[in-house]
């Protein structure tokens, strides 16, 4: 069916306006990080002084370092747990408590973070009263982020596992591979791409989280989003724009690099498959 000319232009216009809406704040953040004024929403000329100030901002920098550590361990843990959960949900059609399990895996995706944070904290406090540990800090924040990250990782990995051709695993099994060999040599390489996406996604989610961190952090464990949040609550602050720009640049490089690597691997595998088919 051919769309009419007006329909075509209306569609293009709607998409352009939508994308403008989605990207306007990001552009504004970057632009005003170079703005020579303490009020970062009116342009007064170019400066780099907010970046210079940032280099001496120990509160922000130690928060960043803490956040990076937590995000790294969250991403690693979430990919492991997410792979197990996704594998269990896709490969094992029947086991006791499957409905409860699949419900619990996806619930943190939509459950309000204030509820998750509060309940996790109250439990950890009860545990601490009984056993004397854990102290609120990096470990407790990690547990909270791991819960949220596992949910996202499971969804990403699950959708990839479901699309896999089960015949490849069956073939490996027929050729005498043991179940764990099938998993490490056949299944894992085929879902590797989704593991990378899940790792990156959970890393950024952890790096961004305010609410869970606020509930689960203790004295001396203030993550970067908590620093940003407390400054943003008070009003506009150019230091936040400078940090934002750095985060955006790093994330953009990471995403572009990852998608380039994934695309290259796919291409190579495609060529190998073609070569194997010819042989």
């Amino acid at each position, binding site marked *: 069916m051919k769309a009419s000319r007006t329909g075509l232009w209306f569609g293009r216009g709607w998409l352009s306006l939508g994308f403008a809406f989605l990207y306007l704040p990001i552009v504004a953040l970057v632009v005003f990080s170079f703005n020579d004024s303490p009020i970062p929403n009116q342009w007064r000329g170019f400066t780099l002084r907010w970046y210079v100030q940032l280099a001496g901002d120990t509160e922000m920098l130690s928060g960043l370092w803490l956040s990076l550590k937590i995000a790294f361990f969250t991403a690693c843990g979430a990919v492991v747990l997410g792979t197990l959960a996704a594998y*269990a949900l896709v490969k094992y059609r029947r086991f006791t408590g499957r409905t409860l399990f699949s419900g619990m895996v996806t619930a943190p995706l939509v459950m309000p973070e204030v509820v998750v944070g509060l309940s996790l904290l*109250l439990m950890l406090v009860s545990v601490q009263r009984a056993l004397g540990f854990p102290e609120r800090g990096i470990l407790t924040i990690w547990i909270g982020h791991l*819960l949220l990250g596992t949910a996202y990782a499971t969804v990403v990995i699950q959708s990839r596992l479901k699309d896999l051709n089960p015949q490849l695993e069956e073939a490996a099994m027929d050729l005498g591979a043991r179940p764990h060999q099938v998993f490490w040599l056949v299944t894992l390489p085929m879902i590797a791409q989704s593991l990378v996406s899940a790792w990156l996604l959970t890393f950024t989610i952890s790096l961004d989280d305010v609410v869970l961190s606020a509930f689960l952090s203790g004295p001396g464990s203030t993550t970067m989003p908590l620093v940003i949040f407390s400054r943003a609550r008070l009003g506009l602050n150019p230091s936040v724009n400078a940090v934002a720009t750095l985060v955006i640049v790093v994330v953009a490089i990471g995403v572009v690099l990852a998608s380039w690597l994934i695309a290259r691997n796919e291409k190579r595998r495609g060529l190998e498959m073609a070569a194997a088919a010819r042989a």
Partner: protein
Amino acid sequence: MSTLQAMRGMFSGRTAVIAAPFLFLLVFFLLPFLIVGKISISEMEIVSFKDVLTFSDGVMQLTLKFGNYVFITEDPLYFRTYLASLQYAAATTVLCLFIGYPFAYFMARAKPTVQPALLMLVMLPFWTSFLLRVYAWRGLLTEGGWAADFIVATGLDQVLYALGLITTPGNLMHTPFSLVLGMTYTYLPFMILPLFGTLAKMDLRLLEAAADLGASPWVAFWQITVPLSKAGIIAGSMLVFIPCVGEFVIPELLGGPETLMIGRVLWDEFFSNNDWPMASSVAVVMVLLIIVPLAIFSKYQAEAQEARR
């Protein structure tokens, strides 16, 4: 290796694969909820809360306090807050659907070669910090910001004022308008992606058939495209509505004193008043508010999963 051994190896491997994430979720997701439920009906003592079950003089005593729930349901402030949270979440969902449906529709009808790029462009803001993007709106909507200047210059602020979404013309921040705008902005991709998923899969020959049978494009759209994208509409709406009800960061940064939402109330009960049982009761009520949309969502999600297979 004998068959028996192989079977045992498989069995234990299977158990471990299921048990590790299962136990993690039971301990860190389900158990905390039960604890919150318990604390919400226990009495507050100085710096801590009283155990529901206590032993005194060798006698087990059960102290239950439903006072928090009575207070929450009778106090007009709480009631208004719950109602406001549901209203703002509903308004956000409607706006997201209004912007997102045509957006997803035109994306799905774009040339197949540009679709991956468009999809990437929708996903990309996900990767940059949500907190920072919400903060950015503060700058845009404060007097002198780009969006504020645009809205005032086009006279849209008079319209918003007439609708009662802002309290004085020209002042956009800390109003229901800035709150709903921020939530719409944040959750729009959650609406677009499931809608795009269903619209991209649609069989376009159905529209040709409708045209052959004399239906105008407009009629065909409402009678064929919209009903076929029902699953996407429901999934997207729930993905927007549910987290909006309990949203905390956006009302805190973009809302004002009149836009009190339930997430903020829970936060204040916990951090400012240190009333843990009260905060727990608010959490329980919040979960009850979203349990119906949650059930609808998981039902459709399960159906979609079955349909894919």
